[in-house]
């Protein structure tokens, strides 16, 4: 059993205005859908309105004071992101709309150049649709193929299987999630990257579920590309991050053409801008990037080790309590240090959507369905699961209410 948490949940909850609202029937909101998106602290919301109220301006071009302030604030967040994931330089941090766009950028700009007939991209069965469909599209266009690493029931890959697949001379890219959004399984991405690099195969990490919850270091992992989203880590929607090694970005053609990504435009040709601006065409999502900066500050103040510790404690407690419920099937790793704060489960023959409807009566926001991971659902041979996912503001009291609600669902369905 893990020991105490250094996170003061009661205090944290005061920082999130939405957690004060009530759900139909007068219930307190119990928000357990954090793997989909997280709630936003007041500092994030305030920083966005502060930008619009006090220094709204386009960035990078104008020389007036507002533009200077807005440019500084936007670029300051790039520095914060670089520091967060320990990138060597801000040149390696590109702002996109979401993690999906970050992956698509690599598929469009890098993979399209490197994939030809008979070449391969390797992913796993646990991937989110955002790390499947872009590769289906780009391998399809190139006549290349998409290969899957199969996973065990707990979502783990087989290392021998991987070692064999990675030795295929036709393999051009490995793209893998660091943490499953369904099972919470944490994959050994550092080891996987090392093996891939021995074969000169670059590695992309979908870190949408990991960066928000634990310390992630791109230099330590040595990955070539990484994608994640601001909105899954207390930030606003509409901001995704792409990390890529500078040497690779320099060789890559631009993603979209337009303003800001250019140095000079002439009738016949254009000189593209330096990194990272070459990949950020048009006016970016300035306000929300600035909001994301406030989210990073908030998480850094809590400390990522404390966040991980808190999540392990609450996940362990939830797993213990859920196991008491008759007829429950819990998916994913049993060892707490091998999983994130995500628990997928099914209860008897109650369909997850029915369960979500029942839990909503208790004020509980829980996810149900295939979680954008239909390949994994097929692998687990289920059509859907229920999923609870925790973050810094969730408490054991909320887990207790979840357990009561699940027991109530059992009674309603006569289980």
């Amino acid at each position, binding site marked *: 059993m893990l020991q105490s948490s250094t996170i003061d949940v009661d205090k944290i909850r005061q920082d999130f205005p939405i957690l004060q609202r009530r759900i139909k*029937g007068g219930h307190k909101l119990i928000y357990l859908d954090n793997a989909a998106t997280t709630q936003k602290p007041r500092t994030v919301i305030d920083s966005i309105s502060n930008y619009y109220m006090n220094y709204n301006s386009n960035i990078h071009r104008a020389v007036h004071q507002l533009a200077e302030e807005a440019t500084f604030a936007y670029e300051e967040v790039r520095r914060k992101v670089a520091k967060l994931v320990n990138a060597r330089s801000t040149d390696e941090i590109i702002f996109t709309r979401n993690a999906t766009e970050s992956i698509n950028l690599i598929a469009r700009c890098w993979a399209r150049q490197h994939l030809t007939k008979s070449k391969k991209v390797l992913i796993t069965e646990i991937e989110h649709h955002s790390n499947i469909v872009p590769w289906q599209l780009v391998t399809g266009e190139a006549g290349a193929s998409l290969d899957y690493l199969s996973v065990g029931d707990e979502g783990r890959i087989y290392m021998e299987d991987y070692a064999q697949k990675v030795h295929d001379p036709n393999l051009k890219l490995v793209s893998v999630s660091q943490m499953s959004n369904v099972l919470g399984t944490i994959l050994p991405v550092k080891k996987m990257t090392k093996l891939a690099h021995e074969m000169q195969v670059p590695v992309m990490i979908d870190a949408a579920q990991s960066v928000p919850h634990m310390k992630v270091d791109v230099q330590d992992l040595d990955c070539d590309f990484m994608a994640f989203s601001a909105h899954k880590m207390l930030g606003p929607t509409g901001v995704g991050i792409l990390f890529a090694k500078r040497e690779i970005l320099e060789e890559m053609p631009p993603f979209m053409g337009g303003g800001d990504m250019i140095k000079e435009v002439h009738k016949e040709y254009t000189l593209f801008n330096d990194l990272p601006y070459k990949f950020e065409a048009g006016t970016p999502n300035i306000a929300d990037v600035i909001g994301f900066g406030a989210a990073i500050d908030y998480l850094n103040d809590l400390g990522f080790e404390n966040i991980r510790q808190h999540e392990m404690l609450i996940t362990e407690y939830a797993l213990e309590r859920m196991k008491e419920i008759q007829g429950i099937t819990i998916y994913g790793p049993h060892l707490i240090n091998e999983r994130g704060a995500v628990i997928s489960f099914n209860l008897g023959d109650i*369909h997850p959507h029915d369960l979500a409807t029942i839990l909503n*009566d208790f004020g509980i926001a829980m996810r149900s369905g295939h979680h954008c991971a239909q390949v994994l659902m097929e692998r687990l041979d289920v*059509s859907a699961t229920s999923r609870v996912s925790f973050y810094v503001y969730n408490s054991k009291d909320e887990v207790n209410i979840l357990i009561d609600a699940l027991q109530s669902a059992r009674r*309603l369905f006569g289980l």
Partner: protein
Amino acid sequence: MSEDIYREIILDHYRNPRNKGRISDADVSFHDSNPLCGDEIDIHLKVEDNIVKDIKFEGRGCAISQASASMLTEMVMNKPLASVKELGKDDVLENIGLVNLGPARIKCALLSLKVLKMSMVEYYASKDPESAQEIREGSRLY
């Protein structure tokens, strides 16, 4: 509230669906799913003298979608196609006793009606394109 939704009759049709299965010599079959939930319904129709001689469904999904499909098959069995054509969403919601479903769950309740309407579109496609078009318009339930 959930107690009003998951009444005995819904759970009974969910666990003991009526007319579930295939029709080997069906005149028409149609499949659709709810991308949001992943509910799936197939409807197989056998028509004789413009009457629904037999109807069966296959599917998987939540209690609302599956009970609704089961109850719909009972509703239209041995009924003239002309009256089945007129079925609207309120008829189905009243029949299953779920008139106050929210926007997220109403799609579960109406998926089977949508699939039934589309199977009739298929049925009429070559015989009576005008009716087919009319039913297709009416199949946009949500």
